[in-house]
């Protein structure tokens, strides 16, 4: 099955810290990209399930040729690109080929970023077609290393009783989900929700992609303008 994949890039500059530099055009909130795409140490790429689809990413160590100069930041640390693709409807069948494609796109964006780090605003990516290996079952192929510990750790010892209760609730939820799936049957995966501020409804007869807006499935095409510009000092 053929599906859509949206390139993304998270990277640090010679002066600026890590941020998303290329963002899937349909996304309104892209904070999860920076929190999910962590550096890889022992594997060539990784896939993780996110609320917006499967996220597959790889690392690219920036060379002098890539950067057109010093491939380190001002503290002497190596520059690294975390690039990849977001597939709303499944996982890419050939992740290597898809990542080779996003690598080239990411590098072009990164060069523009290095030309003016302080003024650079995240760019919106357009989708490309990929073959999907697995549809609508988004599971982490390799568990993300230390997923972000988002909430502050509790001060006291964990309450075992509540932990058991939580575990029970998880099991119960899983059982209920299975029952729900069996009773509902298998249908096509629903389109992702639209985000009004970054999505342009397409007047074209064959829109690029679909999403859910006010309960209806609509077609749209990605904007070619920066996504959620964030002022920087």
């Amino acid at each position: 099955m053929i599906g859509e994949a949206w390139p993304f890039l998270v990277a640090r500059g010679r002066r600026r810290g890590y941020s998303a530099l290329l963002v899937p055009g349909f996304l309104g909130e892209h904070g999860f990209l920076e929190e999910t795409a962590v550096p890889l140490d022992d594997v060539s790429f990784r896939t993780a399930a996110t609320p917006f689809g499967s996220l597959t990413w790889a690392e690219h160590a920036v060379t002098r040729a890539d950067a057109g100069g010093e491939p380190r930041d001002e503290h002497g640390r190596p520059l690294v690109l975390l690039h990849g693709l977001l597939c709303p409807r499944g996982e890419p069948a050939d992740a290597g080929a898809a990542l080779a494609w996003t690598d080239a796109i990411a590098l072009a964006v990164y060069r523009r970023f290095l030309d003016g780090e302080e003024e650079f605003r995240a760019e919106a990516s357009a989708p490309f077609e990929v073959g999907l290996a697995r549809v609508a079952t988004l599971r982490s192929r390799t568990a993300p290393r230390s997923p972000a510990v988002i909430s502050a750790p509790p001060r006291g010892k964990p309450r075992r009783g509540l932990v058991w209760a939580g575990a029970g609730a998880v099991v119960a939820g899983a059982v209920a989900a299975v029952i729900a799936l069996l009773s509902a049957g298998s249908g096509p995966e629903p389109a992702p929700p639209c985000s009004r501020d970054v999505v342009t409804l397409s007047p074209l007869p064959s829109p690029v992609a679909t999403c859910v807006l006010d309960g209806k499935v609509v077609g749209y095409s990605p904007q070619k303008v920066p996504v959620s510009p964030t002022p920087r000092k």
Partner: protein
Amino acid sequence: MTTLLPLLVSVLVALAIGLALRRRKRKHTKENLTGPPGGIPAFRIVTLGLQGSGKTLLLTGIYRRLQTPADRGFYLRVPHEQLIELNRWYRKAADVNEEWPRGTTRGELREFEFSVMTQVGADAEPVVKLGYLEYPGELLTDPDAPGSTAQATLLEAIAGADALVGIIDGFRLLQAHNGDQRGQLMLEASLDAMINAMLPVRSPIVFVITKWDLLDHLHPDENERLRMVRERLMDTPGFADLVKVHSTRRIVRLIPVTAVGHDFAEYRDGAVRKNPGGRFRPSNVEAALSVVVPDILRQTEMSLDHATRAELLAAAQRRVRMGPGEALRTLGTYVTGKAARILMSAVGAGVIAESGLSLLLDTLGPRGYDPAEHGARLARLGEADRRAEEFVQARRRVVGELQRQVAVLEAKLPDSRLGGDRWGDW
């Protein structure tokens, strides 16, 4: 609707099982008092430093220096997966043929859990726990991405920290010293971030100058070098005010550290680079951690009014005469009493935890260790109380050793005291 019913039933059953197990566990705990009286005191430390300022290498250096007891009588342990991470950073940093570790990303925000281990009777046991938040420095200065929770997590951690460590990047100090305007601006930006976060808090603060080795050439005498840097920092109006405000309540320290050693790296061709023949020998890094626990206890003690302090002191004296089990029970009167309320309003939520109060009372007791008296005292106690008493003594030893390390630092670098001289010595 039919799919919701089994879910509801399952959740209710799970809750009932959980509560039953919890009640059983609580009953079981009451019957045994063989662990540390009052539990293991846990303190959370948050460093405040911009990207590239050396937070990760400081964390690595602290662990490398304190992972064995040496002559200190205590050492640090971390959970295995965190140990793997720390060792990976160490290998990257210490190998002159490798690049520096790449910066921390938002997805890598997490707390490292150090257990301070020491001998309790025949076993090595944790007596204090220290949480150390690792995060990307840009969270302090850059707007968070839409939908990200990392910045909120950091701000929450800062507000709830038991101690804040301000990281002053030696590289920025070097740039400022060389007249580099960007270096000066970035130094000011880092100080601004600290001022904003530290001014309203009541918890202890300490300043650490990282990459101290890059400033070696300023003066051959280390204390003189520190004095020069201190003067530059105190010339920054906001920073001087911050120190002044906190000095009314505590000693404020400025600790120079190098996480790599004095000949391992140098500033060359616009970046900090490793020297091919450099030796990886961190220096002073453990001081950044050693000052924290004594400062928290000191801060707690000094924040009390005279009457409350006298009340707690009397409780500490009584604790020496009674068994730890009884001492723990009487502690409850303070947790619910006036002294605890004053403590809470004085120092916030951190130290008032029963374990922290226990540690404070331990250290308020008589100083010094008399083996004969200790032996006689142990002989009077039952088995459970004897074990608890061993914990009390172990905690006291660790705090005493931490205080000794602070004293050594002050003797070596008198200018490491930025302010708060009237609080005297530990």
